[in-house]
């Protein structure tokens, strides 16, 4: 499904208008800090402070394909192997690890800070350097835990393919509470 970044962002907290407005800011700040805004299409937050519980439902924008060697650097065939020139060093550590695992340490050389040479006939073109999907989900979980009020230590999360549901409460989580939150999200989505 095609979505704009945060095209829908709703926060509902019955009886706590100020809290709702402030939590909007907090969520924006935290998502911005962790660089997640572009990856989330729709976000619904529902808080019942009397019970109390804190619930978030969100839709993820598009799927991120795994990052391959050819995506992180320029790959050229060189004498006796392949040479990779990396511009963005963000994935350098991962790249070296993957090359070491595949070709062995003795067959990977680093003549310069951003240049790697692989001594092999096999092209490393299709090797997976980083699984962005997993990284994104880890960051997302981190963000949700940061967003939820700290006292809400009992948490449950459901990570789907293109959506996620997060629930945090102070007391033991009861199925009725989760069902109630999900029902509220149903209403918010239809509205």
């Amino acid at each position, binding site marked *: 499904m095609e979505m704009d970044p945060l095209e829908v962002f709703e926060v509902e*907290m019955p*009886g*706590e208008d*100020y*809290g709702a407005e*402030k*939590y909007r*800011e*907090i969520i924006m*700040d*935290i998502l911005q*800090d962790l660089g997640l805004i572009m990856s989330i299409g729709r976000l619904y937050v529902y808080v019942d*402070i*009397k019970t*109390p519980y804190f619930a978030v439902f969100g839709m993820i924008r598009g799927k991120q394909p795994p990052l391959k060697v050819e995506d992180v650097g320029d790959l050229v065939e060189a004498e006796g192997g392949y040479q990779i020139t990396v511009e963005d060093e963000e994935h350098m550590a991962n790249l070296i690890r993957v090359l070491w695992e595949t070709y062995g340490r003795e067959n990977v050389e680093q003549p310069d800070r951003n240049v790697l040479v692989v001594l092999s006939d096999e092209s490393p073109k299709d090797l997976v350097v980083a699984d962005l999907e997993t990284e994104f989900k880890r960051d997302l979980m981190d963000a949700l835990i*940061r967003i939820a*009020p*700290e*006292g*809400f*230590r009992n948490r449950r999360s459901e990570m789907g393919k293109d959506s996620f549901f997060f629930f945090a409460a*102070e*007391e033991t989580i009861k199925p009725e509470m989760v069902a109630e939150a999900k029902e509220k999200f149903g209403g918010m989505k239809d509205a």
Partner: protein
Amino acid sequence: MLDPVMFTGGVYKHDLVTELIEDLGGYLLQKNVTQSEIILLMLVPHEDMPVLEALTKELRGKLERAPLAGTEIAVVTPTLAIHHLPHPACDVAEYIRRHGAKSNMIGMGRGVAREIAQMDEYETALINEHDAVVFIFGNFVDCILKKEHLYRNLTIPVIVTGGPEMEKEDFPYAFEYVQNVGRIAHRSRKATEIGSLDNIVAAAGRALDSVRASISKDPLTTTPPRVMEVVREQVPDIMHSYSPLPIALNLNGLRIKLPYEEYHEAVAGVKFDEGVTLGEIAKVMPSKMKNYILVRILPMSETGFVV
């Protein structure tokens, strides 16, 4: 009367300022050197201010009033986790510090949530050693009201801060409530946010004034800065304390940052010019903060004289 002021300037020739303060009969409370800059926190006799102002001008320094100087204020957050720190707790603590107070940040062990929040005896006693306390609460009306029991047993003035607009009547156990602070995830930089910090400092000022007023009804036998001077002279080991502020002043005493077991006799034995020792006019006891020494000066009604 002594005026609390803060001098900011270069390290070069700053000893002229400290010498002048000594000559005028004022007190140097704190000296902070940050590379080539220096910040001096002082109490200066009101009528001698023009002399200090002239010297400050000559040294190209800056002299500001520091209304909270000589006091210690606790800034309490429900925990020390990322949810409550660094914003806004550090902003509040830093802002209070800039106005001259010594601010201590305290994260409660079990201060989180609505139903399970609690504070133990040790935390209560530790906070009670300060002159005033600022509690940083969140954005929900219901939670702020529910957390009242955390500060109900404190004997010092409590300033509660939170997000929503609430009435003074909602806080029978607090000295004042400052709104528009609450939980935020960014630094306080907007004019409204800085304004709220100003409100906290103003509230702290009023709280300290109320403590001063109640002390003035039964004055202390001597003033805390005077005790500080005498301890500095007669317990020279205090100069080797690694704390940035080896002697912290309170309105009704002071905290001396030396191990209690080794030094409490030396501290109790320091002698004033009038012939009395500190042990006779003050209680010297172990502080709840590390193993420091806490001094509480007795009021005139107990000793029968003023030195």
